[in-house]
């Protein structure tokens, strides 16, 4: 039952009254790779923020077989790695090494182990040579990969990414797609990049106006033009 996401009847309103999520139910099995698509404002990012407890709505969310409540928050954050859309604000340490080391250091792991984890994480994203570089000076593609490494160093069971390919040039995009393909881990990725979805994700969930309007095999859903059109999506 580990490595999975279970959401039951989740609803959430922002303080200003905006009803962002309406009765969402979703189940993701261990090591399944699912794409989350939908127009802007559908609630994708809001949903993602519920998966590690940053936001809390009505209903139940179970990540990595732990129900999200006050006591479990620390464990949840270790098991569910969240990578936000803009790497700008995720790399907040002077050097790459320090950023990737933050997670394990916070957990209280001994130094030798931290160094090992950092090296592993950086090599997984293909950025081993960047350990001593200044995060601020890197390109967007490089930053996005480092951002993923900062989460991988915690050895999470589930990886959740918000718009990983947005803003990347073709080469960086290709590198990122290949990287994510290699990772054998439960994955939920929110994206507008439909070719990316078609290539990498066997299952797709379509959201619109705070609801899940479709959930099924990518092949079938992405060839349903009517469905896509109804929710502001297009196959390029």
């Amino acid at each position, binding site marked *: 039952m580990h490595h999975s996401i279970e959401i039951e009847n989740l609803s959430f309103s922002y303080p200003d009254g905006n009803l962002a999520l309406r009765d969402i139910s979703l189940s993701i099995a261990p090591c399944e790779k699912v794409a989350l698509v939908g127009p802007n404002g559908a609630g994708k990012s809001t949903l993602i923020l519920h998966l590690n407890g940053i936001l809390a709505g009505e209903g139940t969310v179970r990540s990595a077989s732990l129900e999200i409540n006050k006591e479990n928050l620390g464990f949840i954050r270790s098991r569910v790695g969240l990578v936000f859309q803009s790497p700008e604000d995720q790399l907040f*340490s*002077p*050097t790459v090494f320090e950023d990737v080391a933050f997670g394990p250091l916070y957990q209280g792991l001994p130094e030798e182990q931290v160094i090992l984890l950092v090296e592993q994480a950086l090599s997984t994203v293909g950025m081993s040579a960047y350990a001593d570089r*200044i995060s*601020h*000076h890197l390109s967007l593609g490089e930053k996005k990969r480092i951002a993923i490494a900062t989460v991988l160093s915690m050895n999470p069971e589930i990886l959740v990414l918000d718009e990983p390919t947005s803003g990347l040039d073709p080469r960086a995009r290709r590198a990122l797609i290949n990287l994510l393909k290699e990772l054998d881990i439960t994955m939920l990725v929110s994206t507008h990049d439909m070719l990316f979805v078609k290539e990498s994700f066997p299952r797709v969930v379509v959201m619109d106006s705070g609801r899940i309007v479709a959930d099924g095999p990518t092949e079938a859903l992405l060839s349903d033009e009517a469905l896509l059109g109804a929710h502001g999506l297009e196959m390029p």
Partner: protein
Amino acid sequence: MFYSVEPMHIPDGFLSAVVSIIFWCLSIVGISIALIKLNKDTDERKMPLIGMLGAAIFAAQMINFVVIGGTSGHLMGAAIAAILVGPWAAVLVMTTVVAVQALIFQDGGLLVLGANIFNMGILGVAASYIVYKIITRLSGSKKWGIYLGGFSAAWLSIVLASISVSLQLAVSGTSPIRIVLPAMVGIHALIGIGEGLITVGALALVFAVRPDILQPSRERFAPGALLAIIGFGLAVGLVLLSPLASTYPDGLEWVAEQQGFLNAAREPVYKIIPDYILPGISNEALATILAGILGICLILIIGLIMAYARRKRQTV
């Protein structure tokens, strides 16, 4: 709300009108000097810089770190502002930050805004700039000097500001000096450590990412001018406050307290409060104020002598 309340922004109603007005005057003088100095620089780039840094400091105050259990520390910013953009610009930066906090978020009162600006924006900035410059000069602008200077500057800015707040409260008759001064300074000596640590962390990042910002040649250090202004301000403040301390009826409550405490024969409470009395001076509040200010002047004078001595050695 963005941030937690700390005992530094004085709300309305806690300072007497006289004290409020005096510190409004001091602040206006300080701000005017800063504006004049900046205009002399004829560097219009400074205007967007000051505004942006104000926004950044305001936002940076949201970034906290957990100290123990439910308490967390966060930045005030006078020291880092002074180090990053020099004293004159920093005065304006902190003035806008403190003013926006008061006007828009009611963190700090409107009538007492002058006092709050003076404590954090003028006193805090001046003290931290001087300390930072002295230490970095002495260490030859090496990295450890920047960090030590940053930490000391930040710590001092908090502690001095808290002393100023205590004096303002005491002279207004809101709090007895025997309690508020040790309490405030005690708490803020600890809070100051937090400010110091965050400031060093910020300096470390700036040093790594944009070391050019911390170049020593950015501001010409003129200790004479700065010290003269501060010394003058303190002297004016002292002159104005001391007759108040002796004649303002509420400000003399501590004397009555002393009687009250003695009458109630409560030795334990009386004894645990440390003595700030200088020998030979009978007016206790005045002595306390003098002790604090003399201490500050002493540090500044020592620093000044050391800075001049070093400069003399360099020119030889």
